[in-house]
């Protein structure tokens, strides 16, 4: 038990659980403040999400949550990958937009197949990421501020471009399955497992594979060694002859590629359409931050934390809308991000507590 507690991974897990519990508790308190009578039921619905439905529908709803979890996992991988190099890629939100714009435009305007569309999205995200990287490496522009600026630039660009392929009667882009079926991601039969939910596609296995690849790159390869060295001590990395600027740009390009892929894996299921008048950047990239930190900045941790965040985000729609709004789940996830800022402190406290115990034990012997 004590040995387990000393393990870094276990500590990270405990800290994450603590953040989740506190986040949900605060969400519950907010609901109580708004209207005490329905609060308990609503917060339970948020946590249940698809389980709220009748058993027959549960698999199908789980499928929808999974369809959105995959892009979230990729966004959180994007965030954590750059964070390992000491960069905060808040531009993931914009790179996600670029990916969405690229894949939808290629699919609707040019009639490309699913794979070219997907690759196009990846390239678009990577390009955008490398702009942030270039600015950081050669002009010393803070990547958070340039990321935010690019997010807005991308949003307006995407709105303008995608207006060309939108339905004439609504602000939404046209349906992929009506215009270009070949651009939809193959389902590999996974749809049947999830109650004929065609939103469950190749995205699921693909994402897990990507997460494992990211894990391997960071943990076992020369590139990972260089990137983490740069993140931990930029000066030492330079001293060791690592190509710093190249690594910064490469990192943000890979980050951007992951975010771009994320968008492609959501929009090419046909589950979501782009709203050409939307006035804020989709939350997926920002939720990626929550998922990355909640997952202890570990690629495999990101899989589980992303599922959780998406689970409660979807659960938001099951609150009693007579009193509450679905954004309560955004409140919960942003509180969780905030609390993640304390993870370091929580871990330190745990370590101090353990070493104190050890000392006392030592003193007794």
């Amino acid at each position, binding site marked *: 038990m004590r040995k387990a507690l000393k393990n870094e991974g276990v500590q990270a897990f405990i800290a994450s659980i603590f953040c989740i519990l506190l986040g949900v508790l605060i969400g519950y308190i907010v609901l109580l403040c708004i209207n005490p009578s329905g609060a308990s039921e609503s917060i339970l619905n948020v946590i249940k999400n698809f389980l709220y439905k009748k058993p027959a529908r549960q698999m199908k709803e789980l499928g929808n949550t999974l369809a959105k979890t995959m892009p979230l996992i990729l966004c959180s991988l994007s965030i954590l990958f750059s964070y390992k190099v000491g960069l905060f890629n808040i531009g993931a939100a914009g790179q996600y937009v670029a990916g969405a714009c690229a894949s939808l435009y290629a699919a609707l305007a040019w009639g490309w197949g699913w794979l070219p569309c997907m690759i196009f999205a990846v390239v678009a995200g990577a390009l955008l990421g490398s702009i942030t990287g270039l600015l950081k490496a050669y002009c010393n*522009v803070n990547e*958070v501020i340039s990321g935010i*600026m690019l997010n807005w*630039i991308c949003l307006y660009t995407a709105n303008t471009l995608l207006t060309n392929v939108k339905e004439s009667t609504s602000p939404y882009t046209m349906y992929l399955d009506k215009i270009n079926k070949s651009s939809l991601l193959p389902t590999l039969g996974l749809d049947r497992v999830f109650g004929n939910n065609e939103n469950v596609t190749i995205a699921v296995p693909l994402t897990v594979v990507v997460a494992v690849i990211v894990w391997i790159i960071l943990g076992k390869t020369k590139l990972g060694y260089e990137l983490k060295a740069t993140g931990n001590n930029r000066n030492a990395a330079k001293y060791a002859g690592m190509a710093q600027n190249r690594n910064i740009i490469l990192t943000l390009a890979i980050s951007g590629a992951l975010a771009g892929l994320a968008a492609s894996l959501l929009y090419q299921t046909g589950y979501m359409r782009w709203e050409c008048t939307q006035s804020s950047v989709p939350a997926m990239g920002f939720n990626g931050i929550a998922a990355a930190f909640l997952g202890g900045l570990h690629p495999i941790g990101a899989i589980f934390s992303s599922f959780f965040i998406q689970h409660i985000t979807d659960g938001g729609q099951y609150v009693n809308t007579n009193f509450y*709004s679905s954004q309560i789940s955004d409140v919960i996830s942003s509180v969780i991000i905030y609390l993640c800022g304390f993870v370091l402190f929580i871990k330190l406290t745990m370590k101090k507590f353990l070493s104190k115990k050890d000392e006392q034990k030592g003193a007794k012997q």
Partner: protein
Amino acid sequence: MLLLIQYTLIFASVLLLVALGGCISEHSGVINLGLEGIMVVGALGGALVMKSLGTTSAFVMVLVAMLVAILSGMLYSCLLGVAAIHFKADQTLVGIAMNLLATAAATVFVKAMNVAANPDNHSSEIEYISARKMFIVNIDGFEFNWFMLVAIIAVVLVYVLLYKNRLGLRLMACGEHPQAAASVGVSVYKMRWTGVLISGALGGLGGLGYILAGVSIWKFENGVAGFGFLALAVMIFGQWKPTRIAVAALIFGLFRALSNTYTGFPFLTSLNLPGNVYNMMPYIVCLIVLAFTSKASRAPKAEGIPYDKGSR
């Protein structure tokens, strides 16, 4: 043209207030990336006052709305203070969380309020048509907004505070070399709290100014569209100096104002550019400006580094 000047001045005033907030916070050693969220909360506080105060004299309205915006901003900035000063949290992460939380919480709150008033109203909007008029003095078609005056006063106050006052001397020492400040008995925690709270006050005030700038109704789901980050860019461009920040704010204000008023300029409309181009303009200008000014930046040396009593 008059309209362009009017919009430039009001947006510049808002940018200036928020950028000064960021400037003070960074001089004390805390990077405040949560300004965006602080603005939303300040705007919410002000909007609630404007909605609930109803008919009253313009003086009382302006004063109370501003005070409440300031207080709500300060209160919200405590989230940053606690995490960054006492718990050595990652200031970037905390700031971003604050931005997300502010928009989400404001939406939940306003919706709940609207629903309580009218069960069919699920919007996140607050209306303040009559109250907005009280902030504005019409001079020959030019709408003078009290925020313009407030912004000028704020520059003077911040300048005097930083360069002529004991508090400023100590505060800046904490952002440059906190160990030096501590060694002569200055409490680094206290100074950093002062910096964060002042930035909360100015950010909250700026938030109210922002929603009053052009419209009489605000949808809180939208937040403040990156304005807090634009203000940080203004601060960097202004090299952390109040007077330069004022100039930078005017430049950025102009580009922001263009997106509201470009239809009034025949030669701009004749270019036939999509409106989104003008929407993008401030952000693009910001990127270009940052690319050229960040290299030689003179940011406070110890900003963003948690102060640890033990380290020397």
